[in-house]
Every structure is written in structure tokens, then in C-alpha cells.
């Protein structure tokens, strides 16, 4: 149902009189850039002077947001894609209260600036809130948007998430979602949890893999589901142009050092964006894994059925 409704809405908007439509070509990846260094915490967290959320414009129609580690150590990355008719915000961070962590205001400011640049009316522009998966560090600030006009918000259960995209055969089915000339491809990607999606943006050719695959510790709760999701991702990158694979966190240094779960300072953090080759190498390693344990692919850690509360740290004082 919702696909039909969305299609009708898109058509209606397309034919309505309005500003010139932006073209989002898909033949080559839209140009864009990542910052040389993201905000990555500070030696003393209470003395951190960075903004609560770093807003980086990857290109004029794509913003990437990062949560400050001094507000929450999860330091989640969030992706804000703009289309002619609506924007989508993938993930809503780890901190719920707006007076602690102003996601709504930051996103509204970003949308207002985009609308001003592109001749849209902020009041009429739609926002869609979706998230990668059902963990609290990916939707915590969702409630900051509940009273926002022209905003649709994904529900917090697998049934609601699947219905939100109109997916009938989860996780295999792939659907397309139109932001107005800019198309996203969405399909199920469970394994880290039961409820997770992968999001591919046809304009930037960025593949967002949530917590199922990112530069850090991929906590794999269900190996078989995760491996099947990896196979789906590999099939996808075999058949579609992918410029970058991005995740929700970075938990590793440029030299491969693991930043322990809970750290509030990552001075030599590796970049969030990964080459497709990183995904392929991880898949090659995954094919050899038969037992629970922690496996390093050279770029990411695959934590197969290890408890999330266990770290790789040893007792440095043992003698």
C-alpha cells in the first residue's frame, strides 16, 4: 500500500508548480568528500569543546552527521540524504533528550540551509526518519521529531520497520524508495540483530551497512543470518556500482588498534568510509570461520557470537 501511496505523492509533487527539479544522475557516483578527521573525543571528556553533532556536507545534497564522543561514546554516524521532495535521515543517534543532545535542531538547521540553497520551503519539505537497526544507539533521538510537521517516523519493531518500507519478503526482498529523483535501494541485512536494513543511495553510490558491517567490531549475534546477509551484500556489489561502504561507528585506529568499547577518545581513528575491497576481504575471511571467536580481517574485527561486553584487552599488569 505505502509504495502506491508514495508513488502517487511523488507524481503529484512532480507535476505541481515549484522550483527547478534537481537532477540526481546515477550513471556515475556523485562527487563528494569525507573530512580528513572527524571529531573523535578528547582526553578529558568534560573538557570537550566540540559541537554535540558534527555536520559534514559530503556534497551539496548529502550531509553526514557524527555524534560527539563526549556526549555518548557510541559516536554514531548518521546520514542525511536530500531529494527533490523529501529528505531521509538514517539513524538518530544514542542520546534521547534534546537539551542534552540537539539532533532535531541540528537536522532542522541542515534542512533549512539546504532548502534555502535550493529554493524549497522548509515548512513544506518532507522528512523521513528511518534507522539501520533496532538498537538504542541508532534511534534514541527519534522522539525529538514526533511533533515535527511533514515527518514520517519508522516504528520500533521488526513488523513496523518492514511495513514502513512495504517489504513482504524480509530480508531478501529489495525495494526502491524515491526521495524525489533520488532513489534508495533497501533490503534486509540481519545478523548483528534480527532487525536490520542495508541502504544504498543510487546518487552517491554509498552503501550503508549499519552495525552489520563497519570499521570496528562487527558483533555477530546470529552467524547464519549474518553470513547470508554478507552474501547478499557481495551479490549487490557484484551487480551495482558502489563507491563507498559506510557503517555507524568507527572503533579502530589507522594502525589497526582496537578502541575498547566505551572509550571516549580515539585520537588516531580510522575513516568511516571503506572500499568495496574491505567488504570482499571480510567475506573471504568469513568463509573460513567455523567457530565463535574474534577474527581480524586486516581492517575490521568479526566478533562471531562473542558477548558484546567482552573486550580484547588483556591485564597489562600480569606477571
Amino acid at each position, binding site marked *: 500500500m505505502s509504495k502506491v501511496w508514495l508513488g502517487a505523492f511523488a507524481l503529484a509533487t512532480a507535476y505541481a508548480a515549484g522550483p527547478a527539479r534537481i537532477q540526481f544522475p546515477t550513471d556515475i557516483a556523485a562527487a563528494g568528500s569525507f573530512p580528513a578527521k572527524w571529531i573523535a573525543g578528547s582526553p578529558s571528556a568534560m*573538557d570537550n569543546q566540540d559541537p554535540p553533532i558534527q555536520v559534514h556536507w559530503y556534497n551539496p545534497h548529502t550531509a553526514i552527521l557524527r555524534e560527539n564522543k563526549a*556526549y555518548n561514546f557510541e559516536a554514531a554516524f548518521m546520514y542525511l540524504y536530500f531529494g527533490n521532495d523529501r529528505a531521509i535521515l538514517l539513524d538518530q543517534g544514542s542520546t534521547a533528550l534534546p537539551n*542534552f543532545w540537539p539532533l532535531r535542531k541540528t537536522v532542522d538547521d541542515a534542512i533549512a540551509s539546504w532548502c534555502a540553497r535550493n529554493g524549497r520551503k522548509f515548512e513544506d519539505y518532507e522528512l523521513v526518519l528511518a534507522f539501520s537497526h533496532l538498537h*538504542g544507539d541508532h534511534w534514541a533521538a527519534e522522539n525529538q521529531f514526533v511533533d515535527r510537521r511533514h515527518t514520517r517516523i519508522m516504528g520500533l519493531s521488526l513488523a513496523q520497520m518492514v511495513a514502513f518500507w512495504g517489504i513482504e519478503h524480509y530480508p531478501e526482498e529489495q525495494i526502491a524508495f524515491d526521495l524525489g529523483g533520488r532513489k534508495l535501494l533497501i533490503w534486509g541485512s540481519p545478523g548483528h540483530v534480527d532487525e536490520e536494513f542495508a541502504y544504498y543511495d543510487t546518487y552517491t553510490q554509498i552503501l550503508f551497512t549499519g552495525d552489520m558491517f563497519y570499521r570496528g567490531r562487527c558483533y555477530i549475534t546470529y552467524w547464519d543470518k549474518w553470513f547470508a546477509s554478507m552474501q547478499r551484500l557481495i551479490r549487490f556489489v557484484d551487480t551495482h556500482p558502489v563507491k563507498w561502504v559506510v557503517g555507524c561507528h568507527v572503533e579502530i585506529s589507522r594502525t589497526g588498534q582496537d578502541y575498547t*568499547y566505551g572509550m*571516549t577518545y580515539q585520537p588516531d581513528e580510522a575513516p568511516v568510509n571503506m572500499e568495496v575491497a574491505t567488504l570482499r576481504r571480510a567475506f573471504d575471511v568469513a568463509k573460513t570461520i567455523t567457530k565463535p571467536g574474534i577474527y581480524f580481517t586486516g581492517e575490521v574485527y568479526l566478533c562471531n557470537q562473542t558477548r558484546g*561486553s567482552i573486550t580484547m*584487552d588483556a591485564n597489562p599488569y600480569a606477571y
Partner: protein
Amino acid sequence: MGSSSTAPCLGEADSATLDIRPRRRFRLSCRKESFVLKTAMFLFCAAFAGAEIRTNYEVAQPASGDLRFKWIYGSVCNALNRDPRVQVVMYNEDTYVMRQNIAVHHSAPFTYLLMGNSGALLIDTGATAEARYYPLRATVDALLKHWGDLRGKADLPLTVVLTSGENLYQNQGYAQFRGRPNTRLVPPDAAEIDLGGRVVTVIPTPGTHKDGVSFYDRYDGFLFTGDFVCPGRITIANDVDYLKSIARLRAFRDSHPVKWVMGGQIDMQFLPGVEYMRLITYKPMEHVLQLDPAVLDDAAATAERLKGKADVIIRAEFAMRNRVGPDFRKPGTREADLPPVPVVGMLR
């Protein structure tokens, strides 16, 4: 109060008879007494102004003090934390407990300042070297100045000791005291540190650190044990040494009055047998700092069970690990004699 007077002992108030006469009469009698008291205090102050006051730290029982409050325990967002960088609590007039703000360093360690007639002792120095983040030296200086003004003792010599020279959660603030005048920065090689009537015993306790040391303050009846025994993560570095040291500490406890075991950190929750994750910086349900001396028996028995094994055992007041990482857990670690814990959802 002259040179032979005893220290004020708050515990004695417990045995004083309560005044249950009508409030009005009590007030009247108070007024009369207060005139006499005030005059006496004025004469006393006039006579002894600027003179040094000597305190007798030889007490029959541990001196009384107060820890009835909640430690600063972090905040949802570290960047918005407005708690003091060093929380200072006066246990009694001659004993101060300081806690490092958890938003400066996740270990939020405790340090102790003890005053005597001829010297002060700082046990442990916290986890951060930079004074602008963690002004331990300035805090200690202010406390010594204030205390010295009251007792007529300027420039009380300070000794700084560590429960372990290698423990990064307790040795970082040490750097702030380098070059401080009138200060002794030595690992104690003596069996005792005499602060002038207040004697602190040094007990070698290797086990969680090769150079581990505990301190016993007879005046308060405190055993300062760092991370050797604390309401938190006890990570054994050498189980043979740990067992020897805990036996030594128990023998010491049995022959000396010990009121509390005062560790250097808290990782446990108020719920028995539940620990906080190591790097979490918001701990609203922390265990209290002070432990009953009987905890040493539990620690000894637990260490005995862990001897030679790579494992974790979680007890009501501590989580002890041997030959595994500091975050090692496994299902079913909670012992059967601990009460059940309500299940709460994981974040990730």
C-alpha cells in the same frame, strides 16, 4: 586543648544522655551556658592564637567520621558534566577522601589525605596528569593550607605514596607533585610512616600489581588497599602472590582494629554481584566505597578458588578475575547465593 588534650571523638556523643526536658527550659539553660562557653572560648583563642595545636592520635577505638552521602557518579553526557573535578569529602577533621570526576577519567579513582602533627600523607594520585583537567595538587594544597590555618601549622610536610607505582589509574597525578616544596615523593620502603603521633603502617600486598602496597591507619582504623581489595574489579596479576598477600592482610586485620577496607575504585553496582562495564561514565547505582573487613575473607576464599585458573568469579562486593582480561565475562557467572537481578535491555 593543650598539648596533652585528646582529639575530638565524635563517637562519644552517642553515649551522652539526651536532654528530654521541655524545649523552653532547655533553651534558657542553653543561653546561660553559651555565655560562659563563649567567654571561655574567647579567652582560649586569645591565649593560643597562632600557637601550634598538637593532637593526640592514640585512640582506643578507631576515630569516628562520616561517609553518609553519595559520590559524584558521572552524567548522561560527559561534555555537560558540571560536577567538581575533584570531589572532596571530610571524613573527620584529619582525614579527607577525594574522588576524581568520572567525566575526566572513566576509572574515577579515590585518593586519601591524612594529617598528623608533623606531616600529611597522600595515598594515591588519580588517573590524570594534567592539572587543568584534574587539579589534585591544588586541591591538596588548599586542604593543607586550610587545615594548617586551623591547627597553627604552616607548610606541613607532605608525603606522597602509591598503592602501586605501575597502576595507571593511580599514578598519573604523581607528576603534579614533582618539585613541590616540603614534599617527599618516595615509595615507602619503611614499615611505618610517622606523621607525628599518627602512625601509618605499610603492608606489602603484591598480587594485583607486582609492587602493590596497602596502608593501615590506626587512627581511623582504615586499610587502604587500592585495587587489591575494592568494591570493584579485582584483576589478579599473580595468583600465588595474591594469596600470600591476602593471608598477610587477614592476619594483620585479626591483630589490629580495622573499621573499614577503603579501596581505590568502585566498579560494582549497589545490587549485589553486578558490575558496571569498565569504561562506562554514568554510574548512578554505585556500590558504597567502604567495605567491612570481613570482605578480606571472601576475597581470600575467591582467590583460592581461582588459583591456577583462567576465570572470573563475581561476588556480592567485587568481581575477581585471574589470567583473563579485565572485561572477561561468561554466562552464569553470578553465584547461587546472590539474589536475582532484574533483567534490563542491552543497548547494542
